[in-house]
């Protein structure tokens, strides 16, 4: 949007803000300041998404746990039992579940943020606010689901008598990495979705391919070293292997791999945010 609020220095109540409206240049700044000004709206949108998510469902928040749990059972049966995929010496169900918990957070966040703008079409057409809040709120709301699933993961670890190492302190950062990746791809997809509704069909497909391109059902230790780090350019590789390392005490610290993942995910987030801001001015006309 071509608007800047210029409130000259002191912001007293008698000094009304002045808004300038003019056509914007083709590329615009991220305007994180206005995002900060609308932090309460971000809070309410996130809170709405959390409240509404499991309304009128029988199982309610149990869905947050059932999704990764059933996938884990299927993987354990087919890959663990039948194909006998190696799992770095960790019981296969735990091995898969530790990866599925952050993965489910990522995949749901991506799915929901991709559709977030289109499903808020009415808001886009009627009210001004920084549009970034919409996909941001949907990904943020997923954190609640993540916490529930993470609790189940801890229970499962207790069941297998796996004691977490001190490296568990890294999990918040690894979650942040999954968050950044989910939001980054979500920004791209949601902005594209406003113009090209193909995205609706592309995203489930993308998530499916990405699932198998990430070492969830199998360990990344199948690859030898230069390739393993390069594999980390898929940001979810770093997240998943990081989780296993931090919680289950997998032998090798995936430092380089996580670094590659962090760089890749930041690149996606920054380009996504700029693309989003670039497309933002057309949202209300096109959606």
């Amino acid at each position, binding site marked *: *949007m*071509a*608007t800047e609020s210029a409130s000259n220095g002191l912001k007293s109540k*008698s000094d*009304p*803000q*002045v*808004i*300038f*409206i*003019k*056509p*914007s240049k083709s590329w615009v700044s991220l305007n994180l300041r206005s995002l900060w000004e609308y932090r*309460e*709206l971000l*809070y*309410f*949108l996130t809170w*709405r998404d959390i*409240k*509404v998510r499991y*309304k*009128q469902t029988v199982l309610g928040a149990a869905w947050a746990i059932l999704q990764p749990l059933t996938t884990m059972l299927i993987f354990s049966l087919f890959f663990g039992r039948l194909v006998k995929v190696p799992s770095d010496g960790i019981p296969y169900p735990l091995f898969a579940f530790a990866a599925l918990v952050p993965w489910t957070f990522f995949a749901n966040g991506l799915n929901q943020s991709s559709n977030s703008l289109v499903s*808020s079409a*009415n*808001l*886009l*057409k*009627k*009210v*001004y*606010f920084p549009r970034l809040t919409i996909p941001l709120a949907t990904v943020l709301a997923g954190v609640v689901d993540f916490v529930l699933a993470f609790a189940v993961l801890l229970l499962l670890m207790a069941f297998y008598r796996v004691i977490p190492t001190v490296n568990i302190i890294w999990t918040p950062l690894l979650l942040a990495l999954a968050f950044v990746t989910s939001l980054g791809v979500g920004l791209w997809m949601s902005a594209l979705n*406003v*113009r*090209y*509704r*193909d995205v609706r069909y592309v995203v489930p497909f993308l998530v499916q391919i990405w699932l198998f391109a990430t070492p969830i059902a199998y360990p990344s230790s199948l690859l030898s070293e230069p390739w393993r780090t390069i594999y980390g350019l898929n940001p979810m590789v770093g997240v998943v292997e990081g989780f296993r390392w931090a919680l289950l005490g997998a032998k090798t610290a995936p430092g380089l791999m996580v670094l590659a993942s962090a760089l890749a995910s930041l690149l996606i987030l920054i380009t996504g945010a700029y693309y989003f801001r670039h497309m933002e*001015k057309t949202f*209300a*006309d*096109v*959606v």
Partner: protein
Amino acid sequence: MSDVAICVDGLSKRFSIHSKHESYQTLRDTLSNAALQPFRALKSRGSENGDESGDSETIWALKNVSFEVKPGEVVGLIGRNGAGKSTLLKILGRVTEPTEGFAKICGRVGSLLEVGVGFHFELSGRENIFLNGAILGMKRIDIKRRFDEIVSFAEIDKFIDTPVKHYSSGMYLRLAFAVAAHLEPDILLVDEVLAVGDAAFQKKCIGKMEEVAGEGRTVLFVSHNMAAVQALCTRGIFLHNGSVFTDSTAGASISAYLRQLEQSVSQDLQERSDRRGRGEIRLAGIEISTGINDHAQTLATGRPAMFAFYLTGMRPRTSCIFTIYDDFGQPLATFNSAVRGPDDSQDSALNNALICHLDELPLVPGRYRVNVAVSADGELQDHLEGAAFFEVEQGAMRGRPVIKGKGYGRICLQHHWQSPSS
């Protein structure tokens, strides 16, 4: 406080027609367009008759609009469908960007382009007040402070913790308007929100608008309700085809608008572009006559009247709604062919028209306007404001003369008196 609240300078907005009718495109369209582009370039070079197909695909919803509004002014924006009123409000509300030009707004803006934006049906009234307030730009502490006021204005105290999906439409509207009404911005942009709800609700809304205007706030108000514009606004801006046609007092702009509406009637209906709806079915012509024998054109009070609507592209389950307005823009009566009565008949000889018959026209002598909407299967196909004008001559209601310009009201009802014998 500066001496200008809103300053609009040369504001223009261009829409591509493509993106207006078919709001989103698929990747396939874009790819196939891109693939065909070289061929199209060849073709246009080949034909060389200079048709400006590039230009015809865009329309200017607003063209070079300039005006200034002083703090405390209440300005009514009037004009026909597609005149650019809503686009102007959307630009000022920062929902969409102008293509050219510049606007400056001094003060906190509250835009009310629709009531209840962002309401979620699964959430309770209380939760929606906070959510909607935040969307409209209110701070949480402000919402908390005014919470009780909002609830009592909406008259939903008992249902405040019930999910909004169980509300009646009246309750829903009241709550939605209540939140918006407590925004307290310096500048309020309002788009036709008063056109919804029952009479009591509308009265309440207008009362609230008067209050807001009375507090010295600046209001920019879009409406088709000329009576509301006349009552609320100190100034009227009449937009026509995206430009300012008249910028004067509310009364002067309303009469300019109504005059303009009349002029357009002389124009062929099929050539008019100020329509809404899907457009598969179009209103091609209207005939208003007495409907008896000679089809005399002049209607008179208490005499039969016939309104015939000729349509193109008519198909089964096409219905027509028309409303008669007086010359102040006040709606008087609405007729809907979708609502059936025992006297309705079907005629196989009619294949492109819907005809409405009135046995006794209950209008007092004067000049009237007709707005028409055509729908099929619940979808609006065509909508025309000022589709026709007609004159009613002096007549009699069952033998009781009705004289022009005597007394109040525009409707005369069949009645009789009882009085003591003298």
